[in-house]
């Protein structure tokens, strides 16, 4: 109630002043600013009231965005949120009064009627609305009504609070579409964060393996190699054991090398997509024409996704397409990175057929990208990926 009175007075006065001063634009602006600030402050007070008294958390209304102070003022003045909050601050008083009256009336009547038998005899016989207050039947009926009212009273208070809450949530909180928009923003941000974190984790593991296990294994293979050349006179079984260990160490190195490269290609960071992709193309067992026309650099996560998209698409071509040549085109325009991998194989590629293409689709989608596969039976197959340059 007191909050309601304050907000009603402040909001209405300032609004009236603003409206009145609108003709003298210069004077209206400071009052408008005061009004907007008051609306914000009152909303804050109301939100904490709902949180502390009723345990209702009303999400904060959206803050206007703008480069300059003037732009923010304009945005806030135009925002539907602002005027819905204004509406609530005006409504708070009548709503509060109504609720207060209703609740106190019900309680008062309930208490008065329940205790009626104690004082009915002091009242005039037809004292109230012409009721027979001295008839025991009538007193009993009114007392029962009082008990019922007493039972109903908390529910009335609850209902009043609920109506207040519903109105407050509807008017003070962000509108539904705004709430959804905010949710989408939050989800987009957290998903981008998750994708970036996964990428950073791969880089970290790659670096750890490079600095740790790989160096140690090279050292081991080197020592076994030295032993192999120096211990030529050792007994046959010992020599054989060293030879086998040496070969196995080299094999392990080769396997670890491919695995580490599959985590993250280091050349991508210092030379970019062109260099990293020409490494894959040069290793492909079929001729691949590579064209990369990317003037700047995209975000590291997007570059990594683009790299793995091409790697996986080419693996797919080599494994399944029975192609004789393939082509990789990468272009960047208007903040979009576009990749097209084409082969002259027998077609029929689909994300449902193998986990490779499905993984591609998932990785692309996680970065807000689009994957299209055009692979009619008989070929040719075109896999196109469209990614935002910034994640």
């Amino acid at each position, binding site marked *: 109630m007191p909050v309601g009175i304050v907000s009603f007075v402040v909001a209405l006065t300032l609004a009236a002043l603003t409206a009145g001063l609108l003709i003298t634009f210069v004077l209206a602006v400071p009052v408008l600013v005061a009004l907007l600030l008051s609306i914000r402050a009152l909303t804050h007070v109301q939100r904490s009231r709902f949180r502390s008294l009723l345990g209702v958390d009303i999400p904060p209304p959206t803050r206007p965005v703008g480069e300059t102070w003037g732009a923010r003022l304009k945005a806030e003045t135009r925002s539907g949120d602002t005027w819905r909050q204004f509406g609530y601050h005006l409504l708070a008083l009548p709503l509060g009064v109504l609720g207060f009256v209703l609740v106190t009336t019900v309680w008062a009547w309930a208490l008065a009627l329940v205790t009626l038998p104690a004082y009915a005899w002091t009242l005039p016989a037809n004292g109230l609305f012409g009721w027979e207050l001295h008839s025991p039947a009538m007193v009993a009926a009114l007392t029962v009504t009082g008990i019922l009212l007493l039972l109903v009273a908390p529910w009335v208070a609850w209902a009043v609070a609920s109506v207040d809450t519903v109105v407050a949530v509807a008017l003070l909180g962000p509108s539904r579409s705004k709430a959804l928009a905010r949710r989408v923003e939050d989800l987009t941000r957290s998903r981008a964060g998750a994708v970036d974190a996964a990428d950073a984790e791969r880089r970290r593991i790659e670096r750890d393996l490079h600095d740790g296990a790989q160096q140690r294994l090279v050292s081991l293979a080197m020592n076994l190699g030295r032993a192999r050349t120096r211990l030529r006179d050792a007994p046959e079984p010992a020599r054989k054991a060293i030879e086998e260990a040496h070969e196995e160490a080299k094999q392990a190195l*080769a396997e670890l090398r491919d695995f580490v490269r599959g985590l993250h290609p280091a050349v991508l960071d210092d030379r970019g997509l062109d260099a990293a992709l020409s490494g894959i193309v040069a290793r492909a067992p079929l001729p691949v024409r590579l064209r990369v026309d990317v003037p700047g650099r995209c975000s590291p996560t997007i570059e990594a996704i683009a790299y793995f998209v091409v790697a996986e698409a080419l693996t797919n071509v080599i494994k399944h397409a029975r192609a004789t040549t393939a082509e990789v085109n990468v272009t960047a325009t208007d903040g979009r990175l576009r990749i097209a991998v084409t082969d002259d194989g027998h077609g029929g590629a689909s994300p449902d057929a193998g986990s490779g293409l499905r993984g591609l689709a998932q990785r692309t989608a996680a970065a807000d990208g689009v994957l299209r596969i055009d692979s009619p039976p008989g070929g040719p197959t075109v896999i196109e990926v469209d990614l935002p340059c910034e994640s």
Partner: protein
Amino acid sequence: MRIVIAEDSVLLREGLIRLLTDAGHDVVATAGDADEAMAVIAEHRPDIVVMDVRMPPTHTDEGLRAAIESRGRWPEVAVLVLSQWVEERYATELLAGSTAGVGYLLKDRVADVRDFVDAVVRVGEGGTALDPDVVSQLLATSRHRNPLEALTPRETEVLKLMAEGRSNRAIAEALVVSDGAVEKHVSNIFMKLDLPPADSDHRRVLAVVRYLEDAG
């Protein structure tokens, strides 16, 4: 041979020192990062620097940049670049300009001690040592764009071995054919690639690799 080793892993640095010292070479200095390497090369002017690609502070390609810079400043100092993964792009950058006294090998190759020491000596004497993996990448890249397709599979094989810096005798041994057969393949390669035949092993490699560079 006077050698400088630039490698940030202490384990590998010590291993390389032992390996090269065993073979009778003199490791005059070591460095743990690219800046230190440049300072050490300037001071000692070794016959050859064995350089790791990824070194502090950024752990990306500072070793490669240092190798290229060293070749520009001190052409008489040979450079053998080692890496856990060989990149076609790095090879092209490293071989741009001159191919004398340059090597680019996978780190794994140090496990085959004798071959590795041979490669160090070959590069230190002004020759070339390219990892088979690098060579096949360069050939694959060039095949997509040039008349190398005219070569027979056997000639391609011979060319690969040549690009690794091997002599005719070594190629003949590797392919289990006679020296004469190899010479015939080699002259065919030169003819098909339109390159003038040259007498020395080294100049021949230069010609082959220069051709690969042009294609790449």
